[in-house]
């Protein structure tokens, strides 16, 4: 089994992983960071989105060993102590969730969208969330949340 070294939310960690271990499995089961959810496990739903060297990826469609040497960001890394990230606050304010299962992927994606395009408009948000499915179909509040979160992130 190969050993990999990654930085997860700023902390370096070295672990042995199996060839077939997905990045999502590594994060949830070996690092015990269960905020990253596995929804479909067929790389369609986006619940498992994390950042890999700053880019959003579906962690169920990446092998853990492919991430060797990379910086990984998960939902647990967004808050600053007890202070939630502005995007998390916006999701709470607008009730941008129903069952909450898709929320980690939605929030990670939303933060990345705004970081890449601070002035993103509603059209950009809707297209940017194409890879994230909310099976409760609670999209309208999610869009409202991302708009507010984007405004807060712009400061």
């Amino acid at each position, binding site marked *: 089994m190969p050993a990999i070294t990654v930085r997860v939310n700023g902390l370096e960690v070295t672990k042995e992983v199996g060839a077939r271990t997905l990045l999502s499995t590594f994060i949830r089961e070996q690092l015990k960071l269960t905020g990253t959810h596995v929804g479909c496990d067929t*790389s369609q739903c986006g619940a498992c989105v994390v950042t890999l060297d700053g880019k*959003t990826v*579906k962690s169920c*469609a990446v*092998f853990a060993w492919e991430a060797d040497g990379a910086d990984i960001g998960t939902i647990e890394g967004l808050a600053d102590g007890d202070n939630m990230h502005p995007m998390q606050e916006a999701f709470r304010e607008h009730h941008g969730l129903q069952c909450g299962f898709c929320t980690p992927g939605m929030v990670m*994606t939303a933060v990345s969208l705004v970081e890449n395009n601070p002035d993103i408009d509603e059209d950009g948000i809707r297209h940017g969330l194409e890879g994230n499915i909310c099976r409760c179909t609670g999209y309208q509040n999610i869009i409202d949340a991302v708009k507010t979160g984007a405004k807060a992130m712009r400061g």
Partner: protein
Amino acid sequence: MYDFGIKNPTSVDDVKTALGESDDGQFLAGGQTLIPVLKQRLAMPSDLISLARVDGLSGISAGGDSISVKAMTCHAEVAANADIKSAIPALAKLAGGIGDPHVRNRGTIGGSVANNDPAADYPAAVLGLGATVVTSEREIEADNFFTGMFDTALNEGELITEISFPIPEAAGYIKFPNPATRYALVAVMVAKFGNTVRVAVTGAGPCVFRVAEMEQALTASFSPDSIKDGMVPADDLNNDIHASREYRAHLIGVLARRAVAEANG
């Protein structure tokens, strides 16, 4: 998925060695198709030969009359590249419409072209723009590359290293995406090079194809009106739960007209 060994070569030569040492090795590029396929146990390679750490397989370089995209360049990079946006905007648009943002951050041009999915976007760009596929062994013209459904002219173990796109005078790409997958239900790339026009269609048949009748009509007059209904017969087109072959035949005409209009600005 079935178990497999891992190889992480760092040069094209090492890739050949790694493949030679494997019983039934398979290249892993971005993995956005291969990993789901492995999960479904539809493939059972003895080893995955990762191309991610191979030197010199990623990046975009613009020459005078062509733009070269290295095989491991991801879709998001192509979509955002300033040279491509300015010289071949239709190619940037095509790359920016593949899958979703997360897929575009991992999926690569080499992986997509080698896979030759009948509904993938990139085959339409490669064939429509008349690109050259550069491999570890040779250069293959687009017209000779796509040989059938999920089939290409690549030999066993032959590795795509880059795709070279000639810069057209004008080009347009219009896709009718499957609303769930964003794969092309039908998509058409139209490109004009001086007195030559190329029209490539993906999603409609078992493999990307050109439409000679449209190319001739557009060579005579590069206008949407040159495209007439019925130029592509429905007989050999895909017929499935997503669309009938007749509907796909109709879409080819509609999308080709829009692609010409887009090319004309």
